């Protein structure tokens, strides 16, 4: 239990760090150049880690299903959606909706036990918990930071728009 939460926190901290790095790349190139580089780097790092921990056993793919090869397409869909949403809504508002939607679908898929994952039964606590978290996200993202601060937040968010999706 506690190990799961710690790993999720580590993942989140790394996502925050990566968003900053990606936005730095994005400043000098474009969304797709950044996305291509980021996914390429992630591929190389994963391959190396696999080889270090498992040697050539890394290449034994048991129970491989054909659709697994196409899972990377989801990440590309993320980038397309985020770029469009940011263009149409502005970054801060777009990100607030993205984060909310992430949590909503997490709850949905947990309660459906989708894709052979262990089913986490839906109950009122979970709904309430998610609603409070979403409220927190909205206060955090849309809550003013002074007039100038608000503009700076929006500018910083804008730079980080695509970065979100490329993990």
């Amino acid at each position, binding site marked *: 239990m506690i190990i799961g939460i710690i790993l*999720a926190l580590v993942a989140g901290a790394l996502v925050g760090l990566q968003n900053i790095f990606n936005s730095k790349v994005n400043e000098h190139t474009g*969304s797709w150049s950044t996305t291509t580089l980021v996914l390429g780097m992630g591929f190389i790092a994963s*391959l190396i*880690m696999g080889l270090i921990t498992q040697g050539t056993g890394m290449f034994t*793919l048991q129970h491989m299903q054909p659709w697994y090869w196409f899972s990377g397409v989801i990440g590309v869909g993320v980038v397309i959606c985020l770029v469009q949403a940011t263009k149409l809504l502005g970054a801060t508002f777009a990100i607030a909706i993205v984060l909310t*939607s992430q949590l909503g679908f997490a709850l949905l898929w947990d309660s459906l036990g989708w894709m052979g994952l262990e089913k986490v039964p839906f109950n009122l606590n979970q709904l309430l918990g998610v609603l409070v978290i979403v409220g927190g996200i909205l206060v955090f993202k849309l809550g003013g930071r002074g007039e100038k601060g608000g503009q700076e937040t929006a500018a*910083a968010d804008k730079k980080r728009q695509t970065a979100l999706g490329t993990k």
Partner: protein
Amino acid sequence: MKGIIFAFIGGACITLQGVANARISQDIGTWQAATITQLTGFIMALAILLFVRDGKKQGFKKVNPLYLTGGALAAFIIFSEVTAIQHVGVTLTISALLIAQLFMTFMIDSNGWFGVVKQKMRLPQFIGIGMMIAGVLILKL
């Protein structure tokens, strides 16, 4: 309205990525899943890049090499996220992940690390983080 739909689907896809990776990991192993999903994503993104040509190649030379390798972090992000989902489920994983993500971003912003413009944390941001943590506690009641 169109923008809201894009943002909504985008969020769904981010969570779907985690769920799909967790599912694939069960069968072929976590590092294998991370490798395959990023390989196919890389190939697709490269194909799109060749089609739209949005980047100026010289641009990469202007970026600090540290930032260019940031993508490598994704290996550890996917590994941690997948393992977390398998241990505590999707909702709790995504909740904790988002809290740490927003907190990290604001640590960087308020300290001006990595040359970002320094921004102050104000009351709404503290209240927001507090509400998110409270929400996670409610989830676990």
